[in-house]
């Protein structure tokens, strides 16, 4: 099989799940005739028809609310946010209606809310968001943020089959920049499991989504200096894979967390607390983090480059940490 992009992996997951199960339907703005702003749903309407692929009005609260209602009757809606930034428009519906449903009254909401996220493409303050932590802070949701085409496809399939609401973030920088061969036939990647991308003994670099690439690049550079970094891809942010995180920290004794999300309230803080609770005695240096700045995502290229983490920043932080 020819290598495919992450976007194609996501597209395949939706197609295959809709083929497999007529309870799976898709809703979103411009997802039908147009095929979605990024063309993730291209061809979906032609194959599955307007009853299953619904071009919705520009009404995010309306869309998510309707998807929630559909899921109460046993359907499995896959909702596209044209840009994940617009999830702010339906925040109440997601965090109050959808997330609390099963806990409050035992009504599961098997829906997926997916959309292009992340910066690095000069999208400016409203088309570059990494809003994962609003939702990681919301019990009842699951939050997935893949970094490879293989994982994106397998995780999205798991998300669609999951009985809980899953927020599925698709880093738009990665949509067409990475390619890989995917396994033939049906496969899934389990939610809540991190992946060790590179083994190492000197320190652990934890990251996810687009930051995996500078993290791996940094590890490569560090190896040239004799520092062997273990690199872990979180893949799912809620629930976090505590076991894999703690096992790695116990092995390397040093932890650097890298995320494209802004610094304050980013997942690095949560992981640092988790490691203090579960592996404090094993630590041999301060838990370090490389993150975006605590600002909105700026538009102009030099500003955005300054705002985002990169390989050099990760290498510098890792070197300092390795010095302990």
């Amino acid at each position, binding site marked *: 099989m020819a290598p495919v992009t992450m976007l194609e992996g996501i597209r395949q997951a939706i197609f295959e799940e809709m*083929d497999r199960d*007529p*309870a799976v*339907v898709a809703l979103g703005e411009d997802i*039908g*005739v147009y095929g979605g702003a990024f063309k993730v749903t291209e*061809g979906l*309407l*032609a*194959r*599955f*028809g*307007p*009853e*299953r692929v*619904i071009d*919705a*009005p520009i*009404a*995010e*609260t*309306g*869309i*998510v*609310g*309707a*998807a*929630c*209602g*559909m*899921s*109460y*009757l*046993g*359907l*499995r*809606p896959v909702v596209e946010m044209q840009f994940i930034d617009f999830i702010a428009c339906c925040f*109440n*519906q997601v965090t*109050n*209606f959808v997330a*609390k*449903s*099963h*806990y*409050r*009254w*035992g*009504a*599961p909401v*098997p829906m997926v809310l997916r959309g292009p996220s992340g910066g690095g493409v000069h999208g400016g303050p409203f088309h570059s968001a990494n809003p994962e932590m609003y939702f990681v802070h919301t*019990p*009842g949701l*699951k939050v997935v943020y893949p970094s490879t085409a293989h994982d994106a496809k397998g995780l999205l399939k798991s998300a669609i089959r999951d*009985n*809980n609401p899953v927020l599925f973030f698709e880093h738009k920088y990665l949509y067409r920049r990475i390619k890989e061969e995917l396994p033939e036939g049906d496969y899934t990647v389990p939610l809540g499991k991190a992946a060790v991308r590179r083994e190492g003994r000197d320190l652990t670099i934890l990251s996810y989504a687009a930051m995996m690439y500078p993290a791996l690049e940094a590890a490569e550079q560090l190896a040239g200096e004799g520092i062997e970094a273990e690199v872990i891809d979180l893949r799912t942010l809620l629930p976090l894979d505590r076991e894999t995180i703690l096992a790695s920290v116990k092995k390397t004794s040093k932890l650097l967390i890298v995320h494209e999300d802004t610094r304050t309230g980013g997942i690095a803080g949560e992981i640092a607390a988790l490691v203090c609770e579960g592996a404090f005695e094993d630590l041999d240096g301060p838990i370090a983090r490389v993150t975006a700045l605590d600002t909105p995502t700026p538009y102009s290229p030099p500003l955005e480059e300054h705002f985002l983490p990169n390989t050099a920043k990760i290498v510098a932080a890792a070197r300092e940490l390795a010095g302990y």
Partner: protein
Amino acid sequence: MSPNLTRQQQLDLYYFMQLNRQLEDRMVRLFRQNKIVGGLYSSLGQEAISVGTAFALEKRDWLAPMIRNIGALLVKGFKPRDIFTQHMAKYTSPTLGKDGTSHFGDLKNRHTISPISMLGDLIPVMTGVAMAGRYLGQKIVTLTWIGDGGSSTGAFHEGLIFAAQQRAALVLVLENNQWAYSTPVSRQAPVKDLSDRARGYGIESRIVDGNDVLAVYATTKDAVETARAGRGPVLIEAKTMRMKGHAQHDPAEYVPKEMFEYWKTRDPILLYEKYLTENKIWDAKTKSEIDARIERELDEEQKFAEDSPLPPAELAEQGVYCQDGCHNIEAEWQRPKKEVTPPNCSVEAVWKVEGIGSAANSVAASTRAAGSGGNGAQPVRKSIAKPPAKVATKPAGKPAVKSPADDSATARVPFGRGPKGKSFDRGAHGKQGRR
């Protein structure tokens, strides 16, 4: 109003309205005894709407109550103990004590969706239930309520827009009880009939006297049939009056006394009792039998609730996620899945745009209509279009608020200067250069 109802059904309407009222009356007493854990909201004076609308639904239909729709839950088959235990946060409540008031539901049997406190959100949700029902071939109708206040929310508009676009089988009952907490409806929206909004969504609407249970029933029945026939959503505005404060804590002193006095004479149960008597549908004996039955049932149900335990503390940790097979999610298909499976469901993915250029035509048409006053609009008078010579005089001693439009070279609000040594002069932009 001659309803298409049997005598027993007409007596049932009374039973449910009176049960609703007596149940709430008992809860007021429980509230005063500190046995209600949270807030208590009253539907006093609005029972005809809850009961009359829900009565128009079939068993397969779905509803989602608001806080003042206890009566609808009773009609849908919930027991008074469900309401008592919910308010008293008991382990025996439908939510096991995890949520209160009317915030509970039943997906399996009573087809009821639990509301949340944020207003308007049920409208898109019930739109989705209706869409799914149609997709699965179930021929269901969904019904929910909104207040006059709640009709200002974005969710109300987004929900109705989506429902209209989908021609979803949704009946939305707008209970105009004239008060959004402390704010009168006239101060919320400058429209006489909130149902006028339906026109903007391209859907049907009705207005009904919300204190006349038979009118409410008949209007809803008609709307339900309209929706079930695939003619799209219907908005019913039921005019009524909230006879208590927003909740128990609120004495509603902002409501003019005469308003309460007037609406007391229009009490929905009083009006209906009169109807039943005048039309010889019941006699004093039947009434006292029903009333006694209600007393008996409520005694028993209240005792059950009061005797029930509070939930064990550890329950707080449980049930955030649907896992370990706690639910088997299976849609109830009432049409062949084949119909929605490729290639049967496949289409040519193109828009069929009818009447190309019609937008321009309609613009032209409305311009003509405006010119002749045909759409009710007055032709624009030139004197209005001309700006007055002087807009305002500057009050002495106070600096004028300067609009950015006043000065083409507006000074920028400094929001960061860049690193030291790299600041620059914007020269050509005049005043806005950094200094």
